[in-house]
């Protein structure tokens, strides 16, 4: 058996790896004398970050909280609800599953300019893009998850004379949980991409995508990297939140067991 890893190592190793990369970055920039307009050293980016927390916070609220998070919640709930409704009807399932599978694989970011045209420049259009982007991964994953019970388990529920609702909440939804969380993890990363892409097609004078495109134009590359750092932290927190809930909700799944 493999020994369990101490929590210290679990956090220490990735942090150490990250620090090594940062030191290498700093050294390479200094050694090859790379101009800051191409690649600023991490120390410059850190200084810029500390100096402009106010702007970064405004951009964070605009893009992540208003755009991505609102869209993610609405899209996920809609996808989940739609999946349960579709699953109840074999006709709808047969008809919609191929269509939903097809749409889920399409480059839905392409609707960003259309949503900006429909809902204006503010965060509503960003949230709308995110809703459509996350709806189909959640729908497809939930539908697959709801099918992931075998005949024996369903027969057992029937011998208990379980109602449709009982079978759904006690057997099929729990069985679908790993799939739903897979969909949510995909969605969490898609949501930020959608919110930022939509800002390239028009935004008010705040937001991470807006800031990045204007700062690239003024060669404020250190500010761009500071925004990248913010988006990385936001995305990681979002993903970590989903993963934490997953661990709590699907502790019984083989992939979650301690090895």
């Amino acid at each position: 058996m493999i020994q369990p890893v101490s929590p210290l190592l679990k956090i220490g190793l990735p942090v150490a790896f990250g620090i090594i990369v940062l030191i290498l970055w700093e050294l390479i920039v200094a050694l090859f004398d790379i101009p800051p307009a191409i690649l600023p050293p991490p120390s410059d980016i850190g200084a810029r970050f500390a100096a402009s927390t106010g702007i970064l916070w405004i951009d964070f609220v605009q893009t992540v909280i208003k755009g991505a998070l609102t869209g993610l919640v609405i899209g996920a709930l809609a996808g989940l609800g739609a999946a349960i409704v579709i699953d109840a009807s074999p006709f709808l399932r047969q008809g919609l599953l191929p269509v939903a599978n097809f749409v889920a694989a399409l480059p839905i970011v392409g609707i960003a300019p259309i949503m900006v045209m429909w809902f204006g420049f503010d965060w509503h259009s960003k949230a709308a893009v995110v809703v459509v982007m996350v709806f189909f991964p959640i729908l497809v994953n939930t539908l697959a998850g709801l099918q992931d019970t075998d005949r024996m388990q369903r027969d057992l529920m029937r011998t208990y004379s379980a109602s449709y609702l009982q079978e759904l909440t006690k057997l099929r939804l729990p069985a679908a949980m790993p799939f739903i969380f897979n969909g949510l993890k995909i969605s969490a990363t898609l949501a930020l991409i959608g919110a930022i892409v939509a800002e390239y097609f028009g935004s008010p004078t705040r937001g991470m995508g807006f800031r990045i495109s204007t700062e690239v134009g003024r060669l404020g590359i250190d500010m761009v990297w500071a925004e990248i750092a913010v988006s990385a932290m936001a995305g990681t927190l979002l993903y970590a939140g989903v993963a934490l809930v997953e661990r709590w909700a699907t502790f019984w799944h083989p992939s979650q067991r301690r090895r």
Partner: protein
Amino acid sequence: MKRVFPVLVVVACIFAIWYAGSFLMNRSWVMDQAARAGTVPAFSEVLRDTMNQDRARLPAPHQVAAELHDGIFDKKVTSKRSLVYHGIITLQATMWGFVLGIVFGVALAVLIVLSRIADLALMPWAIISQTIPVVALAPMIVVLANAAGAGSLMVPKAIIAGYLSFFPVLVSMVKGLRSPDAMQLDLLRTYGATRAQTFWKLRLPASLPYFFASLKIAVAAALVGAIVGELPTGAIAGLGARMLIGSQFGEPMIMWAALFAAAILAALLIWVVSAIEQVAVRMMGARPV
């Protein structure tokens, strides 16, 4: 027939909703025009006008179809207005990114499954890499690729596409390589199998369904990456650039045609990958489902 019928019904419903939507969304413009001209249009006139606007809020399906047909079949392939021309440019970046993503994703997954240290040190960063919205990184990748001497936009676009497509492969492969349960692993231990034998004879075959399932996602992600890579990089050719041009010049038809061209391209790519998957699964000796 039994399986096609529900799909046809659903698709028909979608078209009906689409037509109803374009009627409702375009009506206010028609009413505006009529009010300005001082006329009260009959319902049939409103209906006709909502279906044939050049700058409709929601163009009707037949308008999009006509624009697509025009862009794909009527323009010469070399023309800057041909969707085939732009599609091929996006497709090239997609394929390079796809290959890059598979190689990188599989290599990283094998490393993570075989080495505890790599698992602990790299997996968090692989996840973080995806939570960094690639659109934010895209301008930086272009700047760095140019500084490194890549002449065209193809290199940064392929990197962006690969950046998006390696992750589904990595996650699925890690899951797949770990999918053998304790019973199967114990069995191999009773056979006295080495780590390498366990890997080649149990873990790798067990991961193949996961691998192919991830390929479909990866190729779609690579296409998204290639399109997204065209947005903030000042590209003038490619489907993403077409969308940007349509948005900037207020030409919705260009946006819609580019969007559907991208959808058709995605469908073709996924179809090809599924065909490859089926052949591979059959060669692995799986029973046809």
